[in-house]
């Protein structure tokens, strides 16, 4: 069975981290599993964890009164779930639910924040990776704002 550090080394998100940093981060992680339909995160609740999905599928949704849960994104193996643990007020902004059985590494956000505070270099490397994920999701939102399937579609 692979160690958490070995699992992390296989993931694109952690590529480029040296072994020492990987071991450091892995020390805050544990393997978790969710069955399809399980709630992983709940909007408004404290955010002290983030997940690196190894396999499965997760839906991020936003509860809209009168419309119920509106799914705004779906994540797969290799994706990172959750960044509210990095920023005050450390509360989840969305719900997250497993759509298929999920295997993930869950990281203790408080542990990681403390490590990042004491090791600015590691903190920078991690924030850089989260910024890349955020940029990709921001770009995705911008494309939706542009309505890329809108007028001009070939008919």
């Amino acid at each position: 069975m692979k160690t958490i550090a070995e699992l992390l080394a296989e993931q694109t998100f952690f590529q480029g981290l040296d072994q020492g940093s990987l071991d450091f981060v892995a020390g805050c992680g544990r393997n978790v599993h969710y069955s399809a339909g399980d709630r992983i995160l709940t909007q408004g609740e404290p955010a002290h964890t983030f997940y690196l999905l190894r396999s499965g599928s997760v839906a991020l949704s936003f509860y809209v009164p009168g419309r119920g849960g509106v799914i705004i994104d779906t994540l797969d193996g290799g994706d990172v779930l959750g960044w509210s643990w990095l920023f005050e007020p450390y509360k989840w902004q969305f719900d997250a639910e497993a759509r298929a059985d999920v295997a993930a590494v869950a990281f203790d956000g408080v542990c990681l924040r403390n490590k990042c505070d004491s090791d600015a270099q590691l903190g920078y490397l991690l924030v850089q990776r989260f910024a890349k994920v955020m940029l990709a999701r921001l770009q995705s939102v911008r494309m939706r704002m542009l309505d890329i399937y809108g007028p001009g579609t070939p008919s």
Partner: protein
Amino acid sequence: MALALPADVRPADAMVPVPYRVVGRARETADTVTLSLEPVGSPIVTPAPGQFNMLYAFGVGEVPISISGIDAGQRVRHTVRAVGAVSQELCAAEAGAMVGVRGPFGTDWGIDSAAGGDVIVIAGGIGLAPLRPVVHELLRNRRRFRRVTVLVGARSPEELVFRGEVASWQASARITVRTTVDYATAAWKGDVGVVPTLIERVTIDPEVTTVMICGPEVMLRFTAAEVLGRGVAAERVRVSMERNVQCGVGRCGHCQLGPVLICLHGPVFPWSRVGPLLARREL
């Protein structure tokens, strides 16, 4: 992909609509229908996947419509979205109605040149229409190709065209199919997000992969950028373009995009040819 006028479509004939009868009409979405057409007399030349016809709604006008189905025999299918007077008239055509057909025009997807390698088909909105015959061809000759992946994006589940058929492609497991929408409720089992974001989730062997993309220009640009970012050469990325096509035979110039005419040199182009043109604001 030839850049000359197909030899079997002579300009004189190419300007005369051939009467076709609507023999079937299937509603795809709230504003889109697929018409099945059969010739009343002599048929047009059998089209190749990617080509388009000019459809004439008698007394109203003519519009370019891509071919969404090439059936055995002489039947062709066109998927039309009601966006203007002519397309509204075509969408309203019931079985038995007559339409005029000129064509087929333009370049095709060049499916044969992708044989032996991987193929990724990417459609946005009604852009799946001209790619549907490609998927049919890939399924029909599945052994000629390695991995086949179809990515389909739409605003919402209700705006996905060919929903039942796409589901059957998924169920067949002969090809990989992913559908994505901008927003959805829990009932939706596909992906959520724009179609370019699915590209990072696809296995790509850039040296042997051919990518075929159809959708609005903005979608083409984002999607092509993602594909190029995965190492696929611009020559291996093909896109189907739409501009103001009117004559269909390269005479009127309305569909000019810099040095190319969409109706004559396209509508299917390698990205290496039109990508730089789309980045020029003056065009």
